[in-house]
């Protein structure tokens, strides 16, 4: 498995993601520059967190027009694996690779904290090493993570089992309180119908070592590394 981590101007989790994939998980990993038209034959593209283009205009909106995104769209349409983390998730929404949009967090403040997320779908390339109902402890760090889809989309993504993670408490209970940013259906992670493009607001790369408080995020990368045939 060869990973590519995209660098947009303003990305700031690019090095973190690269470090975890390369140093912790010992995977072949390369950076992909947003201005180039080259995905360098990677098997999985990661759009990392950060503030691409300063989040000016709208989170992820300008990055969606980067030259490399043309290749990314084709790659995704052909079934290539794409994971968008935090700002990367926002870019995927802006690209139209995932449905819906993000609003400001419900308390109108940036939120950085550990949260718990419950696995809702363990049959994806990104989660097949987890078990449905399993609770993962992973940090979030975002201003616009309040997922907001049109009503018909909610029906659709539920029908297609596209909700991958929901915010929960440590025991896996879903509640208004545990839904820190106010997302519709407590959605923390979402996959496309075809099952090859996933976006999530929590940062699995920040939860990949015990020293940093949790290694629950590794299972997502480990799932990708052993993707379903």
């Amino acid at each position, binding site marked *: 498995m060869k990973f590519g981590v995209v660098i947009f*101007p*303003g990305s*700031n*989790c690019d*090095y*973190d993601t690269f*470090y*975890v994939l390369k*140093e912790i998980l010992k995977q072949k990993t390369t950076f992909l520059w947003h*201005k180039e038209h080259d995905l360098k034959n990677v098997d999985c593209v990661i759009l990392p*967190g*950060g*503030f691409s*283009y*300063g*989040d*000016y205009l709208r989170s992820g909106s300008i990055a969606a027009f980067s030259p490399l995104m043309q290749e990314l769209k084709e790659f995704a349409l052909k079934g290539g694996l794409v994971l968008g983390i935090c700002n990367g998730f926002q870019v995927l929404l802006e690209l139209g690779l995932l449905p819906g949009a993000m609003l400001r967090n419900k308390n109108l*403040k*940036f*939120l*950085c*904290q550990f949260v718990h997320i419950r696995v809702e779908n363990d049959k994806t390339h990104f989660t097949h090493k987890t078990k449905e109902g399993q609770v993962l402890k992973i*940090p979030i*760090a975002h*201003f616009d993570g309040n997922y907001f889809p049109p009503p018909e989309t909610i029906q659709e993504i539920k029908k297609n089992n596209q909700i991958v993670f929901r915010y929960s408490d440590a025991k896996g209970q879903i509640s208004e309180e545990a839904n820190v940013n106010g997302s519709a259906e407590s959605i923390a992670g979402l996959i496309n119908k075809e099952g090859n493009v996933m976006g999530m607001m929590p*940062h699995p*790369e*920040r939860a*990949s*070592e015990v*020293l*940093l*408080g949790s290694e629950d995020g590794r299972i997502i990368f480990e799932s990708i590394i052993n993707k379903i045939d």
Partner: protein
Amino acid sequence: MIDKKVIEEHNLTLEEYEKIVQLIGKKPNITELGIFSLMWSEHCSYKSSKIHLKKLPIRGKNVIQGPGENAGIIDIGDGLAAVFKIESHNHPSFIEPYQGAATGIGGILRDIFTMGARPIALLDSLRFGPLSKPKNKAIMEGVVSGISGYGNSMGVPTVGGDIYFNNCYSLNPLVNVFALGIVEKNKIFYARAEGVGNPVLYVGSKTGRDGIHGATMASAEFGLDLEQKRPNVQVGDPFKEKLLLEACLEVMAKDLIVGIQDMGAAGLTCSTTEMASKSGSGIEINLDLVPQREEGMTPYEMMLSESQERMLIVAKKDKVKDVQQIFSKWDLDAVIIGHVTEGGKLKVKAGGKIVVDLPVDAIINLCPVYKRESKTPSYLKSETRLRPLPLPENYNHILLKLLSSATIAEKEWVYRQYDHTVQVNTAFLPGSDASLLRIKNKKKALALTLDGNPLYSYLDPRTGGKIAVAEACRNLACVGARPIGVTNCLNFGNPEKPEIMWQFKEVVEGIAQACKTFEIPVTGGNVSFYNDTEGVSIYPSPVLGVVGIVDDVSKMVSPGFKKEGNSVILLGENKEELGGSEYLKCVFDMEKGLSPRIDLKEEKRIQEFCLEAISEGLVESAHDVSEGGLAVCLAECSFLSLQKIGFSLNLQDEIRPDALLFGETQSRIVVTSKNQNLQKFLDLAKKRKVKATVIGKTGGDRVIICHLKNKIIDLSVLEACKAWREAIPEIFRVK
């Protein structure tokens, strides 16, 4: 026409003006006067503080760079160095809290990456007026959002800091920002303009009219005509700065440049003259070539502009194209605006004419230095005397009150707005005694802390200075880190008032003594005078930033209790000291008494013992006793434990129970130890001549303290924790 009025408007005295004329051999034009007004301002020249700052110890075997550069540098082994500095952004944050704080972050980060280091941590020390006043709430909300908005976007984690609330900051909040970066020891860059003929490049954002007179603004007292000063505050663009960071580090990694300096306070003026001065060279620039955001700017405005996110680079002559290519990759301007010259002159051209022709030496090195008059303040006599106080009836109530006082209450409402986990190094979340950052692929970690209790410094400036250093080092000792370097931010009132000058002199003396005792060098810092509004001065407010090193990150210790049934041990001694305590302030509304005393040698012994016990693996948790005293310290150990483990204590000291519970006697640390290690721990303490008393056990879900067999505190951990956790969110809750 330069007359008396114009000179005064530039915050220069007539004597200073005459000295300028004499030094440069002519009457300065308005642009030249503007340049002197900036570089001879208190903010840039340290003219009132210099003679006192000389007392601080600046040497040490690991010091690579002491004061005088953008930041200090300490060797941390493994071929790496830590680059760090603290700076104030008080005045702008009062006038426009969001932008003031945001550009403070921008400025301190530039100081770090200018030297070639990638910033890995931010901390900030904030001082506000009481939150009962809506204005203070608005300032705090704006400052926190500004730090969050800028720091988060830059991808540098804000991992800690401290906050105090006091009336004296109502019209003069303090925003002190600290940043630290890591650099390979042989790849450090300095502000040098070497090599005659080498091109001078302007990189980053375009120049506008923002921030003109920022440095002179920070060098005068305020009235309440604040609205008019708002245009003096710069506007930050963190996205531009992030690009600038990446582009600068890339240029530095490829060895294309000779020197680099950020344009912070005093913009183009400061960067050109400082770079030339450090190399004994001159610089000639053409303002027509400077990228401009607005039309029709005068040379005066351009030289004084404090537009953010700009740098000045002296490139190697044959590498200019490569430099420009890298900046263009990051969508930034990199324009040649001049070159290095011989002869030590700053020459500035505009519209084909020479508009500035000044000797660099006069601007940078010949500013007058003042030994300002100092006088013991009259308030000390009355304020340090404490009349006998009644004993409280219900200690539970008092503990809850202290836990929910803004200075002691949990600050999660603040740090949740800061990205503190980006860069995947943060081993401790904010809220511990010190922040801990691992160094990737090494066994080591860096521990960082900021400290400075303003009330102690008000009641006894010298002791306040000593305690600020001692407590910061104690914070480090509690996590298992040995201090290796200090940076300080000294916030005071108007130095032209003799009583303020006396406070300054005393605080510096205290800091110097403590740093000498702990054998840690001061590698730089910042002095912020004129923190007066409407004639009211803030309390003397030193903020100490201390950097420490943990040799083996796997041995780090956190403050929360780990297991039921562990022994709770007090290092140090309980004394009957109530002066300057949060207890007196909260319960009796008194900011009085003698501040706690400190014996630096004893303090050092206790800290060294704590470090030794941690490295021997004998310590499960450690937390230092500070504001709110022993009871608050212990309660916090319960709150910070994952399982919210309670405790039960039996104290035998024959002193007033309120002083015992809430007094702020120094040199105390509460540790826990497994029972199988207890004897070893106590034996080691005895050997090191440190007083260690077993005072109780962890366990249960209650906070229980008995004094001479009377139960004086008995609360549920959850109830107490709620008071501590919810106090600040409650204040900011939208009703």
